[in-house]
Structure formats: structure tokens, C-alpha cells
């Protein structure tokens, strides 16, 4: 049983995940280089200055950022077309929340990850986590933030991209707010991203999940423990199919 592998992601999902990750990394690196104002720049003025000089000026950096952004958006659009079913499944899973169970999971998990089970026990709580579905609540929370944030970032990005291409003077207010929203949203999603990267790549317990982002499959044991509801569903589906 422990040898049984369960299919979790197909090729396009895996590709999209890593495509998204690379785009995010590059967009973040170039994007931070585009902020140069002592009040807001996250890394000080030295980083943008260096980055800009590396690509031959801020204008080039902006072009690069815009090109990456468009590539990123197009990538998602293509994915939506090619694997619409997968995308729909993903979104349905991500946004399907069972408040009582998922919230409890979230609170317990956060305490467990940082402080261990003792505090829970001290509070008289069972440190055992509630069962989770295809995604656990942490994954869902970040995925939700990524989806909503991604849409906001993409839309505001497009607004900025079009600012000097189609918009008239009347649009400056909108463009100004687009800049602000873009900045804030990226900041918030990035905050989640840090946790996501730790949980998925560094924390050993999710190692099989991490591996699955390359192989597409997880061991049954892992599925059973981490995504019990999904595991059960897959099991019963299999039985139905085999019968």
C-alpha cells in the first residue's frame, strides 16, 4: 500500500506552477528595481540603481518587467484554454472551504508549526489536525491569495502598461491607484509566498508534496495523512471504477 502512488497533478499543472514561480521571481526582482522613492522602495535606492545600470537604464528595466508581465498573463491565458478543466478543478478546490474544519486546521497548524503541540495540549485542545481535502487550508489560503492577488496584479499591471499607450489624461487617477494596488498586492502575496516556499520546499513533512510538483504523484501514505478526504474520495472512485 505504501508503494501505491496517486496521481495529483498533470503535466500542464506542473508546468504552470513552475512557470508561475519563475515569472514571480523575475517580476519581483525587476519590479522592486522599478520602485525608486525613499519612502516606498523596499530595498533602498542602491538596488534599483544597480539593477537599472545592469540592463542599460530604468527604461529597459521597465520594458523587461512589462514583457515578463505580459508573458506571465499570456501563460495563464493559454493554460486556461488548454486545461480549462484542470483550472476549474483547481479553483473549485481552492475556494471550497468548510469554515469550522478548515479554520480549526489553520489555527492548530500554525501553532504546531511554530510552537509544537504543547500549547494546544495546555489549552486542552486535541493537537490532531482535522482531515483535509485535495488541498489543506494553508495551501488553499495561499492559493486564494495568489489567485485574487494575481488577478489584481495582472489587471493593475495591464493598466500601467497601457498608461502611455491608450489612456488619456483623465485616466491618471486610475493609473495612480493601479500603481498603489499593484504595490500593496504584490507585498501581501509575497508575504504569503515566503510561508509557501518554506512549507513546500524546506519543511520536511511536505517533501512528498514538493516532489509531486515534479513527478505529479504522491505516495498513498502521504495522501492519506495529509489529504484524507481526497484520499478517501480517490479510493472510493477507484473502487467504483474497478467494480
Amino acid at each position, binding site marked *: 500500500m505504501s508503494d501505491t502512488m496517486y496521481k495529483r497533478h498533470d503535466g500542464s499543472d506542473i508546468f504552470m506552477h513552475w512557470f508561475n514561480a519563475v515569472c514571480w521571481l523575475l517580476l519581483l526582482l525587476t519590479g522592486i528595481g*522599478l*520602485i*525608486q*522613492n525613499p*519612502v*516606498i522602495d*523596499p530595498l533602498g*535606492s542602491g538596488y*534599483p540603481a544597480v539593477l537599472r545600470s545592469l540592463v542599460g*537604464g*530604468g*527604461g*529597459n*528595466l*521597465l*520594458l523587461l518587467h512589462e514583457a515578463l508581465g505580459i508573458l506571465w498573463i499570456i501563460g495563464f491565458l493559454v493554460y486556461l484554454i488548454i486545461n480549462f478543466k484542470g483550472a476549474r478543478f483547481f479553483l473549485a478546490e481552492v475556494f471550497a472551504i468548510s469554515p469550522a474544519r478548515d479554520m480549526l486546521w489553520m489555527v492548530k497548524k500554525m501553532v*504546531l*508549526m*511554530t*510552537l*509544537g*503541540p504543547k500549547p494546544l495540549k495546555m489549552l486542552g485542545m486535541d*493537537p*490532531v*489536525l482535522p482531515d483535509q481535502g485535495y488541498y489543506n487550508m494553508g495551501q488553499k489560503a495561499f492559493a486564494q491569495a495568489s489567485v485574487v492577488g494575481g488577478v489584481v496584479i495582472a489587471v493593475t499591471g495591464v493598466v*500601467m502598461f497601457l*498608461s*502611455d*499607450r491608450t*489612456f*488619456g*489624461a483623465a485616466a*491618471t*487617477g486610475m*493609473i*495612480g*491607484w*493601479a*500603481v*498603489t494596488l499593484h*504595490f*500593496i498586492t504584490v*507585498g*501581501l502575496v*509575497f*508575504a*504569503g509566498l*515566503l*510561508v509557501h*516556499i*518554506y*512549507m513546500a520546499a*524546506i*519543511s*520536511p*513533512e511536505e517533501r512528498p508534496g514538493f516532489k509531486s510538483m515534479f513527478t505529479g504523484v504522491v505516495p498513498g501514505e502521504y495522501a492519506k*495523512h495529509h489529504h484524507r478526504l481526497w484520499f478517501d474520495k480517490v479510493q472510493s472512485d477507484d473502487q467504483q471504477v474497478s467494480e
Partner: protein
Amino acid sequence: MAQQLAMIIDASKCIDCKGCMIACKVANNVPEDQWRNWIKGESGMSRPGKHNGTTKFQPGACMHCDKPTCVEACPTGATYKDEMTGEVVIDESLCIGCGNCIPACPYGARFRNATKRKADKCNYCPERRAQGLLPACVDTCPTKARVFGDINDPDSEAGRLFLKNKEQLTRVAARTETKPNMFYIGDPGPRDWGGEAVTPASMIAMKEAAPFIKGIVGLSGLGVLAMLGRQLIAGSDTDHKENDDV
């Protein structure tokens, strides 16, 4: 000493012919009904008899301030104060057209170029200077009311005038002090038109949000560090075992 390119203007010499405005418009391809420079008129009452030369027409443009509020309002650094020349420069390629800098100028020197859809204003005609010519408005001015140059260079015409008239140089004060580098010899004429530097709400929001964003990212980072710390100290198996126990 670094340069400070500036204009020294003798408003008393201006005849309000608008030569500078058309010259600038043509030299810089400024779109219809937009202007990089201006002549503020004195619309004062007509009084017969002696006037003692009180009427002044006031040529002006971007004042390339020492404390440029437009630069403070720019999120990308597309507008910056050039350390070598003292100019307030717009790097068009880096301008994202957010328009923050436009209300941020208390003198109304900036506008959104209707064709380029980017911030625009006087740039002292760099293309002309590259060819050894004066800025278009200065070159064309009939009475040479506008004088341009490096006021830190006592050998330049502007520097000479700057030193010579040191005592009587005036600036048009705005409600927001920006330390403009446009100097008028004596009475500049209209004085009270300078407004307030207004930062758009979106920029204020971004500035206000910036520490929180940094804070949230920081907290998240701390959380990760905590997890990492626990992982290293307590080992990772504990969790698993606890789970397995169930």
C-alpha cells in the same frame, strides 16, 4: 562645485510677445493646447498718467527646484534631480504615466503630454544644448528677458547676473516651499499664483501602506524563521509522529 542650471529672468524686460511659448512648443513637439512654459500677465487696472513701470509680465517654466516635490511624488524615480547639472529630469522611458508628479508641482509646470501620455515639462532643451544652442525660449526671446546657464559658474552669463543681482534676486514663492531655481531680477510681477504641492491620494496610500507591507512581509519572514528554528531544534519527525499516532 556641481552645476546648477537655472534661468535668471528680468521680468521688467518681457513684452509678453509669447515668442518663447511658440518656440518651446515647436522645439519640443508639445501637443496642441499644452505648454511647457508661460508668461503670466499682470491684468492690473489701467491707470492713466504715471505708472512708474509697475506692470510686469512674468516669463516662467519648470523651476528645476532644489527641493522638488514632483520628485518626491514619483514612485519610479523617472523624475529625479540630476546631481551633475541640478536639472529636474524626466526619464520618459521610466515614466509609467501615473500622473503623481503633476499636482505635486505647486507651479503647475507639469502636464501629461497628450501624445506621449507621459509627464512633461521644461527640460531646458537638451537636444539643443547638445548642439551648442540655447534652450529655444531663451534663444528666441526678443528682449532677452530670459537668461539661461549655470549659476554656479561665475563666467557664464547666468552666473554673472546671479552674482551681480544677488541682493535683489527674487523667486516666485508657492505655498509649498520647493526652493526653485528660477530667479527674477527685482520684482517678478505676479507673485501669488504659486499653489500647494498636492500628492494624489493613491500615492499617499502607497506611502502609508509601504511600512505595513514591509511589516507584513517581515512578520511572515519571522514566522518562517520560527518554523525553521523549530525544525532545526525540535526536528521534523515529531510532527509526523504525532500525526501518525492518530
